[in-house]
């Protein structure tokens, strides 16, 4: 029984892990005016942030069409895959999940499970990774689906954006709306709850913001040694290095996944973003 793991490009997983576990990615699109790029295919994260800085217009994003999903699913089925597990960015944040559902309905004879991860970026990536590992280890489809559904309740992310502007303009600001208009230079610390962006804390300045990321994570996952943690940044390598150092000090995780925030997510959070991911016990 071969199982194929499919996700979308918002999973922001490092290239090497994608290859190692044979994960199939359906790309979203980034639009700079009339120009259209497939996320991670036609434009890399690095290229994106450079272009973002130079561009007068703010980019927009769009989900893959059901047709694109159908194409991917069909190809896999033709290769001999028996079951497909398709795990995607929160349905509150993107229509991607919906497109996948539609594609599934167009292939009634296929065994496809579509899951709303409630997450985005590498948070989704970690779920996908664990699913792919389980598949490689020979777990059944039912076991993998169950694993993903349980993990998505336990996984936690706290992220700090430089400005709420991107989230606001992109329309995904969710409950962090309440933070808008603060006249001081407040760094909002945000999290995802059931797929929606929600405020977690406020801090004055970057140093305090980073402290808050760690403090909030500790409250969520405790201080014990961690099996796996992840973190990502958007054009903020110094911040990432510092966060990594601090996280290692605090939790000595056996595995740390370091990633960059890709173009699609980057459009919505903006450069400077730092995020920390952990799994609560």
């Amino acid at each position, binding site marked *: 029984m071969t199982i194929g793991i499919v996700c979308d490009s918002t999973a922001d997983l490092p290239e090497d892990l994608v290859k190692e576990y044979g994960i199939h990615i359906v790309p979203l699109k980034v639009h700079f005016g009339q120009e259209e790029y497939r996320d991670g295919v036609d434009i890399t994260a690095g290229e994106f942030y450079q272009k973002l800085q130079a561009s007068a217009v703010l980019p927009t994003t769009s989900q893959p069409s059901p047709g694109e999903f159908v194409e991917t699913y069909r190809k896999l089925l033709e290769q001999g895959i028996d079951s497909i597990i398709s795990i995607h960015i929160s349905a509150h944040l993107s229509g991607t999940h919906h497109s996948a559902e539609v594609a599934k309905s167009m292939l009634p004879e296929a065994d496809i499970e579509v899951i709303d991860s409630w997450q985005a970026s590498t948070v989704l990536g970690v779920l996908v990774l664990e699913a792919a590992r389980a598949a490689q280890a020979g777990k059944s489809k039912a076991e993998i689906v169950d694993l993903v559904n349980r993990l998505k309740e336990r996984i936690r992310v706290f992220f700090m954006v430089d400005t709420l502007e991107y989230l606001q303009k992109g329309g995904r600001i969710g409950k962090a709306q309440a933070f808008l208009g603060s*006249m*001081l*230079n407040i760094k909002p610390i945000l999290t995802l709850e059931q797929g929606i962006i929600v405020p977690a804390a*406020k801090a*004055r300045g*970057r*140093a305090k913001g980073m402290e808050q990321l760690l403090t909030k994570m500790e409250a969520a996952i405790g201080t014990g040694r961690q099996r796996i943690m992840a973190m990502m940044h958007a054009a903020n390598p110094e911040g990432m290095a510092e966060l990594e150092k601090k996280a290692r000090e605090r939790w000595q995780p056996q595995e740390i996944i370091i990633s960059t925030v890709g173009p699609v997510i980057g459009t919505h959070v903006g450069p400077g973003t730092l995020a920390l991911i952990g799994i609560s016990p």
Partner: protein
Amino acid sequence: MQLQFLEGQHLRQMLLAGAALLQERKEEINSLNVFPVPDGDTGTNMSLTVTAAVREVEMAAGDLGSIAGALANGSLMGARGNSGVILSQLFRGFAAGLEGKVEASPMEFALALQEGVKTAYRGVMKPVEGTILTVAKEGARAALQAARRGEDILGVLESAIGQAEITLNRTPEILPVLKEAGVVDAGGKGLLCIMQGALLGLKGEDLAALSQPAEVLRPVQEGVGEEPAALTYQYCTEFIIKGHGLDIEKIRLRLSDLGDSLIAVGTGEVIKVHIHTNHPGQALEIGLEQGTLHDVKIDNMAEQHREVLAANPPEAAGPGIADSDEVQAEVGTGVIAVALGEGITAILESLGVERVIDGGQTMNPSTEELVRSIENSRYNKVILLPNNKNVILAAQQARDLTKKEVLVVPSKSIPQGIAALLAFDPEADLETNGQEMTAAIEEVKTGEVTYAVRDSSFNGQKIQAGDILGLIDGELSVLGQEPEEVVLKLLEQLVEDDGEILTIYYGEGVSSAAAQELAARVSDAYPQCEVEVYEGGQPLYYYIVAVE
């Protein structure tokens, strides 16, 4: 002159005169503030507190117990500043000692003074000797001894005053900061003034010399509190008008045709009216023209039967307290902060404060103002940020006077208030917010720059009026000649680590250019810190600096 029994009319006289003398001496008392900072308000705060008490007393019935109760309630609601709150506690205990009485013997009078002292001590978490508390305590002790010796009311009061004066002069020996500053305790002096004025009033002496505080006492109230020989106007009519943009002068004008003993006090939102008239209905109609009517009382004075206005426990409230049964409050938590300065107010509101109370020039709102703000909040739970150590007691008193659930987070400065605000979680319960917000206060250090209002000395150094003072978390730390220099000197002591955020709020009178220039100098001096500048617009303090 001998006075064997204290009656209502005597107490009333004592209070009016005590208030008048205090009003006259308030600037002198203000200048006794340990730190010669421009908001040394003990005199003003105590005067305002007593003034509020006098307003209540003027409208009360004539017997001793009622007047004492009005004294307690009025000062309770009008209490502002720590000294004002302690004074209101002294009055409260004193009033409790006279409850239900029509007259008091010298011993009962002395015992009531003792009650006042006990209540005041109970009301303060950490009583400090060498302050108004000590002066009151020893004055009351002397009063008791005089009563035991068989002295009359005047003798008891004179003994109390004599001892109070001795104790007041001793306060520099008890509190080193007083000695250093070369002053006696301001609160103690204020109390002494009240007592001295009271004695003069009782003796009927020198009333001409005591100026009538024009903005407080209404024109002579004939018939208030006395049993009139012939009743020109029969119905004692009292009510509260609530509305918006209420015009006190207009109301007064309209009512003045209807009778006498007219008193109308309040604000644009709440006015308390008292009038003796033969047409109470017309008086009420005039009130209805402006707003809604509440707490209406009409007494037929010919029946020699008066309802007492203020002989109840504090929850029954005084003038101006919104009736919280009227409007259903939303479930949730609102934050109310005390602050001054347009810029700071805007910042606080942008951070989620529901209402910023303007504390006035001295940043000290009265207990009543705080209670009213709490009642007017949309929410059923309220967090108070006093942002000034002199407001904390009044805030706690306000908390105990309202039916809503209130938490006072003990912020002593604007930076502390902002730090606490950042830790506020609208979804969390009061206890959690209390812990988080109070903890957040520990993370910030406050620097304040102002000017000396008088000569003084500090740490062996001489201060001249006009010198620039720098305070760290409320303690005098730095002296200088230029505000900007003092800011830099303060920062030397405040900044410890890299990566700290230095926030500068500049006050009214400081130009934006000067502030920006200072910020540039600070950035140069501390390249590893983030520096932010905001227009605070606060009076009296050139700069408020937050280091976190």
